[in-house]
């Protein structure tokens, strides 16, 4: 029995670094920081987090190894490393946004859970095996449930966490049952072997049930309609930095793994989304989810009074657009998906960062944003960038993301006209979405403030928000910065 532990360890160094940083954060907080004021404490812990994550990112940038543990439990290739780097960057941003808020005394515990959730995402990204996917997903989800409940003063927080937990548990049960059926019909755990065993047998009813159950499970996870019920409450009730983490990091990781399962594991079981030739497979199922998400998300967002809730519904809609990227089921579609989710994540973290600041002066109602442009001009400018990017206005990253997803879907549709109806629907609905994003901006720039005090922002938070706004503009003007990297990683992996 020879097992190369050293090789596994060297492949898993980034994860190890993140986990060690997590425990270090708890330790440092316990030993040195207990008596400092909350804001200093958070800043120092966020710095520890940033140092750890940055060194993991740097390590992944330097070492270009590929690795594949037996049965594909842990796979390292340029693509997984790129996605992990993105996730770690999102973690750092979340950590610095936390400086602004003051929702808990248990800061060490907060940061260890944040980092463990990131580690869960990293393992998830590297998993190509049913068991590993399930475990990593659970590590991520459990940490997020707890983080959601972290604001002990607020009833909302406890309620949101419980809802998130119950729906998450349901999602886990569906995923597990679906995956266990797939294990049963193939006798394999790793996605490549599953695809090989399934070749040519994809019209079997039991396989179709397994497929639908797995997709339902992930539908809950990425909050695709009609499995989105938990999302508005969970987004509104969580402490704002946690909301941004759920909306950004967790979404990147979940979409990546969903795409991987569908592309690798169920390869050859795509079917067709056209109305006329209905072939069983995952494309029609996903097409329905995407259409419902885009419609329900955008329409429900219009009537929201709370900005966090509004962003939650907009997240559901954006999930729908991202599903469109998965539907194209080819390399270009995959690249467009990664670009889309990444830019969305950057934008939404920034937007929630602004919400976190404004929340300190009242709440997250639309009316609390009234006259923000006079009280905090820089912050308002950043918020404008984020909102316009979410709406998909041209020079910004959100526009290019949508453009990329839609064109790759249309190019595919040109062959069969299958996805064209969905693209048209998505474009129409993103025109609708402009309305509610402009509502937020109207409050900020047009409506007069009732409260005229200038808003003070913690320096690290301000820095991160401005950096994110710049990133959104730059990635929109020069999308090749990211797209080039994704395509290069794809061609290498």
């Amino acid at each position, binding site marked *: *029995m020879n*097992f190369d*532990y050293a090789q*596994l360890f060297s492949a*898993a160094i980034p994860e190890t670094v993140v*986990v060690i940083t997590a425990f270090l954060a*708890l330790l440092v907080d316990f030993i040195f920081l207990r008596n400092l004021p909350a804001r200093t404490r958070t800043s120092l812990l966020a710095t520890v987090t940033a140092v750890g994550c940055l060194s993991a990112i740097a390590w992944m940038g330097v070492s270009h190894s590929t690795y594949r*543990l*037996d*049965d594909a*439990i*842990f796979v390292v290739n340029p693509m997984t490393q790129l996605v992990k780097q993105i996730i770690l960057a999102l973690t750092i941003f979340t950590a610095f946004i936390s400086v602004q808020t003051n929702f808990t*005394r*248990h800061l060490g*515990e907060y940061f*260890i*859970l944040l980092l*463990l*959730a990131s*580690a*869960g995402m990293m*393992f998830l990204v590297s998993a190509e095996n049913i*068991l*590993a996917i399930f*475990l*990593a997903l*659970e*590590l991520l989800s*459990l*940490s997020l*449930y*707890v983080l959601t*409940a*972290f604001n*002990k*003063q607020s009833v909302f927080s406890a309620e949101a*966490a419980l809802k998130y937990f119950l729906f998450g548990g349901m999602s886990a049960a569906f995923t597990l049952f679906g995956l266990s059926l797939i294990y*049963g*019909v*193939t*006798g394999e755990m790793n996605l490549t072997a599953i695809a090989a065993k399934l070749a040519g*047998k994809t019209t*079997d*009813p*039991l*396989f*179709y*049930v397994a497929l639908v159950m797995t997709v339902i499970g992930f539908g809950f996870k990425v909050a695709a309609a009609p499995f989105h019920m938990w999302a508005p409450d969970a987004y509104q009730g969580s402490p704002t930095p946690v909301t941004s983490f759920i909306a950004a990091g967790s979404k990147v990781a979940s979409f990546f793994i969903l795409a991987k399962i569908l592309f690798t594991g169920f390869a050859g079981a795509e079917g067709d989304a056209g109305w006329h030739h209905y072939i069983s497979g995952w494309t029609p199922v996903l097409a329905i989810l995407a259409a419902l998400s885009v419609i329900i998300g955008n329409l429900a967002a219009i009537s929201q009074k709370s900005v966090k809730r509004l962003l939650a519904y907009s997240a559901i809609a954006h999930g729908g657009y991202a599903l469109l990227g998965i539907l194209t089921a080819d390399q270009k579609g995959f690249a467009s998906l990664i670009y889309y989710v990444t830019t969305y994540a950057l934008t939404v973290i920034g937007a929630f960062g602004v919400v976190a600041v404004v929340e300190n002066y009242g709440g997250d109602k639309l009316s609390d944003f009234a006259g923000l442009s006079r009280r905090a001009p820089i912050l308002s400018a950043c918020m404008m960038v984020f909102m316009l990017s979410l709406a998909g206005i041209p020079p910004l990253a959100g526009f290019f993301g949508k453009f990329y997803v839609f064109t790759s879907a249309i190019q595919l549709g040109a062959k069969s006209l299958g996805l064209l109806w969905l693209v048209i629907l998505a474009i129409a609905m993103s025109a609708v979405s402009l309305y509610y994003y402009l509502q937020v901006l109207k409050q900020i720039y047009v409506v007069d403030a009732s409260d005229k005090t200038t808003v003070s922002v913690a320096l690290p938070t301000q820095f991160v928000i401005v950096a994110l706004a710049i990133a959104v503009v730059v990635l929109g003007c020069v999308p090749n910065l990211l797209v080039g990297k994704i395509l290069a990683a794809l061609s290498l992996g």
Partner: protein
Amino acid sequence: MDLAFIIIAVLTLASAVAAMSLRNLVHCALCMVMTFAGIALTFLQLNAEFVGLAQLLVYVGAVAILIVFAILLTRSEDAKKEVRFVSSSTVVGFGVVALVAVSLLAAIQHTQILPPQSVVAPHVSVKRIGEQLMTNYVLPLEVIGLLLTAAMIGAVVIAMREPDPADSVDVQQRNGSPLKLDPDSKKTAVVANE
């Protein structure tokens, strides 16, 4: 068909039905324990001794007791709130469950792709599982360690009683009170001197 299988299956399903439909929470929990035990027995029947015993220890032992504790901790006049009438959620629930059940059972009935069933059970000893856990599955084992750590820290933080802001003011006053008393005690000391 094997008589033992029929008895265990019927018992498991019946207690699951009871757990889902009884009104008294403690009865539900006890029926649930029966179901868990039935599942553990089915595992044993399938030659999965290790997993069967783990199921017995974890579910019948730990989980059931935790649930009963939680029931006792959160018990109020709960029973009367669980109103029983045909509400919209019952109808929806019935529809969804019927759909899932029919498609699942039909799929099991009509499937062609189940691999040929092997007559011999896999040779599973605790030693082999242990070897697997320490070699191939060593990384998932580490991940599960992290998961348990996260769950433990999380459960402690969530369930810990948080001092209310109002309470902490109380504490400050109480801490302050010896200082306030000090002049008095000095006075008394002075009085005593006089």
